[in-house]
């Protein structure tokens, strides 16, 4: 368009201007960025200040444990680590089933610091890794945005992402998880990609590939990159924006990125064998085809090349598509895995994969959680999007696609709000900077936006710069917006930004900064009581049980038991083996003797349950229990029926109304065994707000080993067969009970038929009665 044509001569002069003000603008940029870093870091320290420097909820404990292992035993031993403490008796090949980027990052930091004789414990490095990386993310966002729009917008975006709750939710101090570093890798990869698309230099695209490699090693979300970048290329092709720069950058990036990503043991051959990665290779082939056509056209420029190009490209696209489909049907390429598929078919997980559906962060997103995580950005980023599309260019196509895809995924899954947040910050930053640029254009106060706006004059501000000389102040005053409007706008938007920042602080502090292994309760006088039951229990386990004791608990607590209790667990938070989890769920859901046979089969030594009834802790096992039942039913439909755990009216309750099966299942008994505290009346369950229906029972096969101060964690020891405290029985009964337990033993195997048939025989009795009744009926 003409603007650029005019701009060309300007650019030289602008660069001159730029060089003169280099020191100043650099100073401002550096200052703002470092302040953003500081603010981001500080706003993530609530948990550390309120409690202590400690690793937060579940997955971080595994990451921490394996990081500690790597620091202790070295990288290669870590890659070959077979963890026999998890998934007993299967064990887990940690090196091959984990994204090592996180551990490597903090391990490297640890190594460097210790080389400098700075003896920082690896725990502290892990705790503060995410806040530190949030600063890097801010810088990456700044770079990305200034590639897309302008440095001013970049500064806005950096400040936004430094404190926005949607990102700090996963990166507060102590939440030592992949996302903490992955978002940085994501943004930086995108920045480098845009850089390489713009410059078309092999150097930048190789950098992109390297950064992509880091992302792959850090987080499973790399699939987002490897689908978004090809999408960008594809759309550019469709828009007829093919260029040598695009060709070079994508081909180089794809090949090197592919090879590098296959170096991660956990990823392995997926990039060429699974559908999630096929878009990239398809686009690669398509790009090759288009490049070839272009070349053909360049041979005879005056031929009917346009049709040739369109038709040829179209045919190529169709061909590639068909090939992919064919390969998928031949089974060369694995179809979409469930987790990804559930993004498209939103009802998929609920029916087929209860273990995915059971996780709360896989639920769809309400508007209020959008607003909670993004506040003012949520209603300003469309403005940025609008202007990006209005004056489109290669990289703005990218950011538009990024925004649209991310907003879709965020809508489907709360968890993916994380991938939406950066682009929202970018676009909102653009919106704010456009507006404040214009508002602040004439007056001299308030340097930063002016500066940024100056620096923006690198490109696409040519018209304005031309006009500036022959513009008289008074002419501006009457023709432009008046002083009042400007200042009013300014004040209003300052208020908005202020609201945003207080909201961010509030959200981070109240919603996202609880370690969840240390609970705090506040008395009426504001005094704080710390409920440290989890660590009490895990400490007890680590000190007072046998070194090789096997602890059975629901999978949520597997990582914590391994990390803090340092004991063997049956199932844990990487839920790779559904049937094993279902077996544990079945044990929890069946009655004591049946459970005992399962537990002996898995030779369990201790059972750990979480019971919040005494203090009204809602996240306890009884509330999760129905998921255990569902998952168990999925694998053992003959033995476990979800319906049995509800009342006749289909309610889920624990009081005397509750169903027989519920009142006698292991989980129930272990939760309420000898539970008589918890306020008035004694034995009142504060979480469910009910009096347990089955009380004062005895346990035959287990005994209470330890219960924490507030009853939150209860640990039971599984008795050895020789120490049942049964009452004396006559020989006859003993024999029957043994046969009984034998049939139960079979019950875990395939042969449940025995118990079934006995049920059938009992059913038989009523038929006789019914026979009579029918007779009377006729």
């Amino acid at each position, binding site marked *: 368009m003409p603007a650029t044509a005019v701009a060309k001569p300007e650019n030289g002069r602008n660069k001159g201007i730029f060089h003169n003000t280099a020191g100043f603008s650099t100073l401002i940029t550096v200052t703002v960025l470092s302040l953003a870093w500081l603010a981001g870091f500080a706003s993530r320290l609530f948990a550390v200040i309120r*409690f202590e420097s400690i690793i937060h909820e579940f997955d971080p404990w595994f990451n921490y444990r394996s990081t500690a292992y790597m620091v202790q035993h070295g990288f290669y031993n870590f890659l070959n680590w077979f963890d026999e403490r998890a998934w007993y008796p299967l064990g887990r090949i940690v090196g091959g089933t984990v994204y090592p980027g996180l551990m490597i990052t903090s391990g490297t930091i640890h190594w460097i610091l210790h080389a400098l004789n700075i003896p920082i414990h690896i725990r502290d490095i892990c705790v503060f890794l995410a806040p530190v990386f949030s600063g890097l993310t801010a810088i990456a966002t700044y770079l990305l945005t200034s590639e897309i729009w302008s440095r001013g917008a970049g500064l806005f975006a950096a400040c936004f992402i430094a404190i926005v709750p949607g990102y700090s939710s996963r990166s507060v101090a102590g939440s030592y998880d992949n996302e903490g570093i992955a978002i940085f890798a994501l943004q930086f990869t995108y920045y480098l990609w845009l850089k390489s698309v713009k410059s078309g230099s092999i150097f930048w695209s190789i950098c992109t590939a390297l950064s992509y490699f880091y992302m792959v090693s850090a987080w499973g979300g790399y699939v987002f990159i490897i689908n978004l970048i090809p999408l960008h290329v594809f759309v550019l092709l469709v828009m007829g924006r093919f260029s040598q720069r695009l060709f070079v950058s994508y081909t180089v990036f794809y090949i090197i990125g592919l090879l590098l990503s296959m170096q991660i043991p956990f990823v392995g051959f997926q990039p060429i064998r699974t559908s999630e990665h096929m878009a990239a290779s398809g686009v690669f082939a398509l790009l090759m085809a288009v490049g070839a056509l272009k070349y053909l056209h360049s041979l005879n420029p005056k031929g009917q090349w346009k049709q040739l190009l369109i038709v040829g490209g179209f045919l190529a696209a169709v061909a590639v598509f068909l090939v992919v489909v064919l390969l998928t049907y031949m089974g060369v390429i694995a179809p979409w895995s469930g987790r990804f598929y559930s993004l498209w078919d939103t009802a998929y997980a609920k029916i087929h994969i209860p273990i995915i559906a059971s996780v709360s962060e896989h639920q769809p997103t309400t508007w209020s959680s959008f607003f909670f995580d993004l506040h003012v950005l949520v209603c300003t980023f469309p403005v940025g999007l609008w202007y990006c599309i209005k004056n489109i260019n290669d990289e703005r196509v990218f950011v538009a696609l990024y925004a649209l895809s991310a907003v879709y995924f965020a809508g489907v899954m709360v968890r993916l709000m994380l991938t939406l947040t950066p682009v929202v910050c970018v676009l909102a930053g653009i919106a704010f900077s456009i507006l404040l640029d214009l508002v602040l254009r004439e007056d001299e106060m308030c340097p930063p936006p002016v500066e940024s706006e100056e620096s923006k004059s690198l490109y696409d501000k040519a018209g304005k710069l031309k006009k500036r000389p022959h513009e008289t102040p008074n002419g501006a005053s009457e023709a432009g917006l008046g002083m009042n409007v400007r200042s009013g706008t300014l004040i209003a938007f300052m208020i908005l930004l202020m609201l945003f920042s207080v909201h961010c602080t509030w959200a981070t502090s109240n919603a996202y900064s609880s370690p969840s292994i*240390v609970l705090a309760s506040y008395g009426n006088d504001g005094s704080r009581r710390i409920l440290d039951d989890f*660590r009490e229990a895990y*400490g007890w386990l*680590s000190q007072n049980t046998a070194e090789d004791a096997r602890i059975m608990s629901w999978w949520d607590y597997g990582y914590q038991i391994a990390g*803090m209790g340092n004991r063997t667990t049956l199932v844990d938070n990487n839920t790779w083996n559904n049937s094993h989890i279902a077996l544990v769920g079945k044990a929890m859901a069946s009655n004591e003797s049946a459970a005992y046979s399962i537990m002996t089969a898995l030779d369990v030594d201790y059972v750990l349950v979480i019971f919040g009834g005494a203090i009204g802790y809602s996240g306890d096992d009884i509330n999760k229990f129905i998921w255990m039942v569902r998952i168990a039913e999925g694998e053992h439909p003959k033995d476990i029926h979800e319906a049995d755990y509800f009342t006749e009216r289909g309610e889920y309750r624990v009081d005397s109304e509750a169903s027989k099966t519920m009142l006698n299942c292991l989980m129930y008994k272990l939760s309420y065994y000898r539970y008589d505290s918890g306020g008035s009346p004694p034995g009142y369950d504060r979480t469910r707000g009910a009096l347990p229906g089955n009380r004062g029972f005895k346990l035959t096969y287990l005994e209470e080993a330890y219960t*924490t101060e507030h009853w939150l964690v209860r640990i039971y020891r599984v008795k050895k067969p020789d120490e049942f405290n049964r009452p004396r029985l006559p020989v006859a009964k003993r024999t029957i009970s043994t046969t009984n337990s034998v049939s139960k033993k079979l019950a875990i195997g395939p042969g449940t038929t025995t118990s079934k048939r006995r049920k059938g025989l009992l059913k038989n009795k009523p038929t006789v009665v019914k026979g009579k009744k029918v007779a009377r009926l006729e």
Partner: protein
Amino acid sequence: MACTSANVVKCHCQKKWSSVTMPAMAKIQFCFTFILFIAINCASVNVDNISSDVKFKNVDRTIDLSSQLVKISQKITLENSGKSPVKSFLVAVEASSKNNLAYIGAKDSSGKDLRVSETTVKGHDSAKFWRVDLKDALNAGSTVVVTSETVFTKALQPYPTAITQQEDQLVKYTGNLYVYSPYQVTSQKTNVVVVTKGIESFSKVKPFSQQDGAIQYGPYPNVAPFTEKELSVHYKNNSPFLTVTRIERLIEVSHWGNIAIEELIEVEHTGAKLKGPFSRYDYQQDLHSGPASVRSYKTLLPASASDVYYRDTNGNISTSNMKVKKDSVELDLRPRYPLFGGWKTHYTLGYNVPSYEYLYHSGNEYLLKMRVIDHIFDDMQVDELTTKIILPEGSVGIKLNVPYPVTRLADSLHYTYLDTKGRPVITFKKSNVVENHIQDFQLRYTFPRLLMFQEPLLVVGFLYALFLLVIIYVRLDFSIHKAEHQHKD
């Protein structure tokens, strides 16, 4: 062995040296030291013989069984029935309990410590002997009163060895009814103190009498040397049976006015083991349930201790209180969980003290005077103590003096912030430690004070270089060719 005795020597000469001021004495001093060194170094052949003219005129013995330790203090009226004055006499410990002995000491009537040194006697190889050197020789026919104090660990056996949560803990003490001594004892009385009323059984040898919480034996006239007769008491003892199985005490000296102390402590309840289940319900019913269990204990820190922390591998142990008293800081430590018989816990306790209270210097000469071990809980018994002292980087000429024999381990180096060649670390061990061992050690070393400024200078230099680099980078243009912004609208 050699190095142990060496320490002993040093400490003694140290004591004298501090009293002696005239440099002329130095030589003699040295000879004395040397001789003593020889004497002790060949302790195996160091033989005393039991002089027949020493008699114990009267022994008044108190066996304190109220805690987990057995503290025997005997007030000995010593009589010299011979012709020549007597410089020293022997104290013996019977073979059965010599391995439990943690501490032995002797005071004279004015409460001054007398020097006690180990020795042996021909013909009595099973028993252990100590020679007590009297301050001034005991002339013929005269008497002197000496109080000897011995502390035994692990001498009380829980019996039964396993109890349920609600039961009381019964322990059994087996000892010697008579004073075990190499000399004729003319008359002796024994007073066994068990604070509780619940005495199951005790050996009855007339004359004896029993008030609540105490049993008197004797007086028994004219008991021959080395007479043994079993004395056994089986009684209720719910006092905490806590053993510190390992403690590592780390003292880090900084010349910027601070001494950091960190103790890694492993505690085990070595009383009667818990039998059967633990029931939180019963445990919450009243405070008296689980009588043998330990809910918390008090640790006394120096009055000037500040920023105390109490944590374990899983982070802070949030259940603890700190009271600052005028002569000490009292910590009320609650382990994460109550300790029943056989249960273990471990924790790290750390605090800072200002260095001016413990670190004296003249010029470049420094003297560190601190406790080998500090109070952990009352009537503590420590199986293994390791004390490490980290001195500032560059300190040389290190001389260690300890009040009692310890095993000194090889020195090592410790690297921390901004260290270049590492800080010297002095390490020594001692096993079977009790409260009576809370005594000061002395550590002299030389530290050139200019070295204090090494680390600040390092930081300054580094920052200077950094800024220099930044300036150079910003000012100069390293790009090979001018990048032009091509931009497509």
